[in-house]
C-alpha cells in the first residue's frame, strides 16, 4: 500500500507505470485521476487545505478497509495539497487485483470515501476572491451504497 500526501505536482502516467512494475500476478490494474476543473470560468488557482497527520491516517484506514473488503494485491492513494491550476492532476488512486471486478470496485470505494471522509478542503480562487467549495449531498449518498451492501 502506498499513501502519499504532497504539494508537489505528479505525473499520473509515471505513477501508473511504477505501480504496475511493482506488481506480480495481478491480472487487473485500475486507476482514477482527479483533475482540477475550472467550473465557473476564470479559475486562478485551486487551493487545497488538509489536516496533516489525520489526512494520512484517514487515507490509510480507507485503503486498509478496501484491501480487506476486496481481493487486492496493492493500492495507491496520492493526493496533493496547496495551490494548483486548472487541468492539473489533484489526486489519483490505483488498485491492483487478480481480477478486474475487485480492482474496479475497490477504486470506486476509495474515491467515494476519500471525497467525504479524508480531511481535505477545496477553495476556488478567481479574480473575485476565494470561495470554499461546498460538499455535495451526492457525495454523501455515494457512501451509502457501500454500507448497504454490508
Amino acid at each position, binding site marked *: 500500500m502506498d499513501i502519499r500526501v504532497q504539494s508537489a505536482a505528479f505525473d499520473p502516467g509515471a505513477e501508473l507505470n511504477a505501480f504496475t512494475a511493482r506488481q506480480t500476478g495481478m491480472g487487473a490494474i485500475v486507476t482514477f485521476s482527479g483533475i482540477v476543473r475550472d467550473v465557473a470560468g476564470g479559475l486562478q488557482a485551486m487551493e487545497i487545505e488538509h489536516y496533516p497527520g489525520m489526512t494520512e491516517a484517514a487515507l490509510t484506514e480507507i485503503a486498509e478497509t478496501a484491501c480487506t473488503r476486496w481481493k487486492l494485491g496493492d493500492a495507491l492513494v496520492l493526493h496533493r495539497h496547496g495551490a494548483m491550476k486548472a487541468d492539473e492532476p489533484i489526486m489519483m488512486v490505483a488498485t491492483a487485483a487478480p481480477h478486474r471486478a475487485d480492482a474496479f470496485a475497490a477504486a470506486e470505494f476509495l474515491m467515494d470515501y476519500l471525497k467525504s471522509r479524508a480531511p481535505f*478542503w477545496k477553495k476556488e480562487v478567481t479574480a473575485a476572491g476565494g470561495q470554499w467549495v461546498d460538499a455535495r449531498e451526492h457525495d454523501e449518498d455515494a457512501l451509502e451504497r457501500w454500507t448497504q451492501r454490508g
Partner: protein
Amino acid sequence: MNVLYFAWLRERIGQPSEEIDTEATTVRELVDELSAREDRYAAAFSDPAAIRVAVDQKLSDFDAPLSGVQEVAFFPPMTGG
C-alpha cells in the same frame, strides 16, 4: 487541549490552532464555551449542522467526551478528491 480550525472555520476564527484550558466534558460544551467567549467563535459555530469534528484525529461528533483528549479539530464537510 490543542484546538484546530480548518477552511472557513479557520478564517472566521482568525487562527489555525490554539491551546485551550477548559472544563468542558464534551465537544458540545467546548463549542458552547468558545461561543460564549467571543463573537468570532459564536459566528463560526452558529450552524453546528455545517461543522464536522475530529477528536484526536478521528472523525467524531458533538457528543464525544473530552476526557483525556489531546486534540480537537473543527472543520466544514470535507471536499477532497
